[in-house]
């Protein structure tokens, strides 16, 4: 499947790696819900590292939409919260 890291581009990630991504993603979500900045940073770091390590970058001229989208490397929890709302960070 295709995963985008915002600010970095898209990666094709083998479905086998998905389980680990989902586990980290659940941690990320829990951290956001509990307002736990340290856990949030650790989970985001783990997620991005996993995608970069397991995935291969897509060529720049593909027009395929991503299945999953991950926040920026140095996103704050607040930014991620805004990302999750329809009229949040993503411009028109």
């Amino acid at each position: 499947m295709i995963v985008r890291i915002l600010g970095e581009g898209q990666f094709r990630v083998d479905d086998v790696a998905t389980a680990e991504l989902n586990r980290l993603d659940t941690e990320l979500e829990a951290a956001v819900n509990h307002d736990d900045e340290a856990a949030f940073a650790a989970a985001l770091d783990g997620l991005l590292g996993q995608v970069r390590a397991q995935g291969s970058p897509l060529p720049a001229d593909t027009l395929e939409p991503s299945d999953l989208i991950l926040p920026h490397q140095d996103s704050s929890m607040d930014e991620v919260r805004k990302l999750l709302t329809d009229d949040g960070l993503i411009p028109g």
Partner: protein
Amino acid sequence: MGVMKRVSLVFKAKANKALDKMEDPRETLDYSYQRQLELLTKVRRGVADVATSRKRVELQMNQLQQQANKLEDQARKALGMGREDLARAALERKASAQSQLNDLQVQYAQLQGEEEKLTVASQRLQSKVDAFRTRKETIKATYTAAEAQTRINEAFSGISEEMGDVGMAIQRAEDKTAQMQARAGAIDELMASGALDDAIGGRRDDIQSELDMMAASSDVERELSRLKGEITASAPKQLEGPGVEANGTSQATQSQPQSAQGVQDQGGPYAPPPPAQAQPAGIPVSDLPAAEPQDGEGS
């Protein structure tokens, strides 16, 4: 549902909303392409803005570095003149300039990072826009209403996701640039107001003026003793022109009483000394006995 999926759904919803606005799918393609070109312009401008901001920080960093060097130089000079207090003051200011410099270096690195990210984003968007244009032309050329919508949707959601991403990258870079400019502006203002004057090489620099004053006063001392030498030398000059110029130093002044005594001890009436004697003794030798003995001789 996890964060990753939710974010991707938000992106998709945005794309769909834009698609739904269009009656004719082909219209969507052209409209989107227009937006893509606008975004490309915007991201390129963003790269230029960050670069401008980075250069401004670079300039301030250079100024601070020069100031730190200058302060260290002042400290060295002050120590050389035995003024440890001044040297300490200079070094304290150097430390403050240095800490400003360190702060700026961190921000400079961040700006550089943003610039690189935006440059890459702009290149990636360019590739995608090119690909979209090709796809758009193909779809329009072989247009049949039945299949068009699906193909348009595919192309559209891919590019619209990229546009959302790039749009956010531009926003982030703009925020960082604005922060940086606010900071650079604050430093400029401090420099203009004189508050950071001494730390940033402003108009008045009290350490420098004290060093200058000390240097000037030692110049004054030197001048004074030179003039003193000239004055003492000028007395014999009236009587006996030559030899004066060479002796305008304090040494000559000191030697005067000695040689004067020597001559006086000899007592005797005035007689012009032979040149061999006059030279080692200096100016005074000839001049001392001049007045009195001559008078005595006359009476």
